[in-house]
């Protein structure tokens, strides 16, 4: 089930919220578990068994690790958990890729049949979550959860189940327990929390449905064109970059917003990555929960930035190879990860200091220029097209700078592109904050209060309008998948 679907917005969510608000506190976790299981079953049907296997494995492993601490068993259980989770991922996500490459390299005229397994929704996310739980229990950073319903509630929690953010058990363990202890929230806290969630959800669905989907169509149309131009390749790259950002950041916003509504605070996943002034900074702002996962569970255990230079470089490349490969079972994702590996190594060891000293504008241009090519790699599953697209951007080959086809789409999508660029920066939020501060501090207290009430009312109206317009977009389209579901 997608958040931007009729089934979710107008059936699943209202029924869940009614139940959630009416039921006594002690039933909230079981209800959430039930609805989360239905949420997953609706789209994935019997693949729910993989989710259950992953949950049971890490639940039992966690308890085992704690029970036998001080013996060799925890290490064995940790290895077992990692092998099972990575094994599920390898089987369902990468088996076709492995067989294809095996066939290409060794099998000649007798290729092996492709397993052709469908990718279970969100497997990359929930296997990483459950693994992180077992690792954290092994490290003694969290206590093993004894209540299976509470543990399964964490693993299957529908807001973050299929496309993140990657929520670690330590992020929500207290919240799962606390809600049982403190009972019903007082009204003010409840509305504060729920209202924040609504705001965040409305912003997220707008990013996904109005911006990401439309720019995805634009990128697809431009790349499919038989009338290339230099500007076309740049616009297609920009449209895809904005699509992938708003698709994923929109989903994260919706997840975080839904979390608020049901009483959970999930970690942030994006922090305006396109304002970064270096590639290193970009990765501190982009898909933060994944970056944090690889940092804490791969990079640091490998030695991180300690040890000899070759070892440090090795660590960076292992992490970025895995980061790329995590995004998809295709060589372009591996290349994409390694591209960042190279850039980050160079920033760390060669030109990072020079970049820091450069004027602000130069730092932005430097970062955006290098990111441009990364998004082209990310979008080009068929690597034979990569030289064509990058060559096109650089004006290589016999193509015009611009043509009527490109101009038409630039004109048609110009405003949306502009909006997307603005919304990708903190500028609109900052301007709104200043406006509130100014009006709130103007004249006498009564007038200021009135102004703020007007702004509050406009916010509510904007949220309602966003929801209704997004519904119109959803009803108008018959198929509306999230990009990140394939990862």
């Amino acid at each position: 089930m997608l958040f931007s679907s009729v089934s979710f917005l107008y059936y699943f969510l209202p029924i869940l919220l009614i139940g959630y608000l009416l039921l006594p506190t002690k039933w909230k976790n079981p209800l959430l578990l039930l609805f989360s299981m239905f949420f997953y079953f609706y789209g994935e049907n019997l693949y729910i068994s993989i989710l259950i296997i992953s949950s049971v494995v890490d639940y039992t492993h966690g308890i085992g690790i704690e029970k036998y601490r001080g013996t060799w068993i925890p290490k064995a259980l940790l290895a077992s958990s990692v092998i099972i989770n990575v094994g599920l991922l390898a089987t369902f996500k990468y088996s076709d890729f492995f067989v294809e490459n095996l066939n290409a390299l060794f099998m000649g005229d007798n290729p092996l049949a492709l397993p052709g397994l469908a990718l279970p929704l969100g497997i990359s996310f929930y296997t990483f979550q459950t693994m992180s739980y077992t690792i954290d229990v092994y490290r003694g950073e969290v206590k093993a959860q004894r209540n299976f319903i509470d543990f399964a509630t964490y693993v299957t929690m529908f807001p973050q189940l299929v496309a993140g953010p990657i929520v670690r058990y330590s992020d929500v363990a207290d919240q799962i327990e606390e809600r049982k202890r403190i009972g019903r929230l007082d009204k003010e806290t409840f509305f504060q929390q729920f209202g924040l969630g609504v705001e965040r959800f409305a912003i997220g669905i707008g990013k996904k449905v109005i911006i990401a989907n439309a720019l995805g169509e634009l990128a697809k149309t431009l790349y499919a064109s038989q009338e290339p131009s230099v500007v076309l390749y740049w616009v297609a790259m920009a449209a895809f970059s904005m699509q992938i950002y708003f698709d994923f950041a929109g989903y994260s916003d919706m997840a975080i917003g839904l979390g608020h509504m049901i009483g959970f605070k999930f970690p942030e996943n994006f922090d305006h990555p396109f304002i970064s002034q270096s590639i290193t900074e970009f990765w501190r702002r982009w898909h933060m929960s994944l970056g944090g996962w690889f940092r804490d569970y791969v990079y640091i255990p490998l030695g991180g930035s300690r040890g000899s230079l070759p070892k440090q470089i090795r660590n960076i490349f292992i992490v970025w190879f895995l980061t790329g490969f995590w995004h998809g079972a295709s060589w372009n994702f591996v290349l994409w990860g390694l591209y960042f590996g190279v850039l980050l190594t160079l920033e760390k060891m060669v030109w990072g200091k020079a970049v820091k000293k450069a004027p602000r504008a130069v730092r932005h241009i430097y970062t955006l220029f290098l990111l441009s090519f990364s998004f082209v790699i990310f979008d080009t599953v068929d690597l034979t097209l990569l030289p064509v697209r990058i060559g096109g951007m650089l004006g290589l080959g016999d193509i015009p700078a611009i043509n009527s086809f490109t101009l038409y789409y630039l004109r048609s999508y110009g405003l949306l592109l502009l909006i997307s660029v603005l919304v990708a920066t903190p500028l609109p939020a900052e301007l709104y904050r200043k406006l509130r501060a100014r009006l709130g501090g103007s004249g006498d207290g009564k007038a200021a209060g009135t102004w703020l009430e007007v702004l509050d009312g406009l916010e509510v109206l904007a949220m309602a309008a966003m929801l209704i317009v997004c519904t119109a977009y959803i009803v108008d389209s018959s198929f509306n998948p999230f990009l990140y579901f394939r990862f």
Partner: protein
Amino acid sequence: MKHKIMTIVFCAILLAGFALNVVTPDKDISFTERRPLDQMPVLNKDFIFSKDTGEVLEEYLLDQFWNRDGVRSLKVWFDRIVLRKSDSSGLYEINGHLFKMDYPLNENSVIKAADKIKDINTKFLGVADQVAYSIIPDKAHYNPLKDKYLSLDYEKMESILTEQMETVSDNGQTRIPAMGYVALEPTLELDDYYYTDLHWKQENLKETVEAIWNYFGIEAELDMDEFTVKDYAPFYGAYYGQAASNGNGDQLSWLVDEEIENMIVKDFDEMKASKDIVYAEEKLGTVDSYELFFGGNSPLIVIDNPSCETGDRLILFRDSFGSAIAPLLAKEYSQVVLVDLRFLGYEYLGNFVDFEDADILFMWGQAIYNDSTMIRQR
């Protein structure tokens, strides 16, 4: 307070959406989209445990969404007015006329269409002055703001076809037309097309009919005053639903006189409910009212006109545009045969059609030339 109101409004929208969708009875057909709507699947064990459960239910919920047309039109409004997009899902509106962007020109397809016409010519026809082809311009060709949009290049399509339809003389010096060309473009203008549909209006085809007659040596004029004009409104054309337009529908008119009423129609599509009739008025108000003409598409229709005793025959290779013009063309022919190669492979034509001494016209819209895979060989 803001968060309280925010919460209440949000929950109200969700609950209202839920209640309206539950309470509103399901519809069978979307008239504006011209298609049957998905119905609630039977929730048995097989369905619930099938891999398509979610997808099938989602399609059903989307199709049966409360006030679906109104909700979709909000999206079109938002695209056009707020985001200033030139088109919404490839459709745009100029002065009340809806247009669909068909782009780009597929030159290979046009060449293949020409090859198919020549192939038919070689197999069955072979008399150059009795065989002609023509292109029905896409409505967008007459868009007054054509330069601001992407559309099929009519002139280029015409020149490609003209070139393809030529053969080189025996001495290799000159190029000879393999068949004639009936230029329809000068006979039409934008208002000869419906506002909400891609098709032309029958009542505006006088010049077009006469151009075709004249090409085949028939010096006749179509006297429009002789006809009784019958009307049906509102006619929601194919673009109306796709564009989720809020505009008014069209008026669908058709021309009737005694001669047309006496025409004898034989429709070879055995599956059709409305057949063997020039104007199937029972089709008005159905999903596609344009099926008024001959009850809709058919691979082969033979129209005999007892009022015309010349013995002249016309074989018209046509698409849906041909349905409206055929009764008018038939006024100067004893027999008109309508062949739709989208539904009948041309290799089998010899079994059904007698080409002897007939005038033959290939007349398709630009969309068919641009996607000539629709012209079936088998």
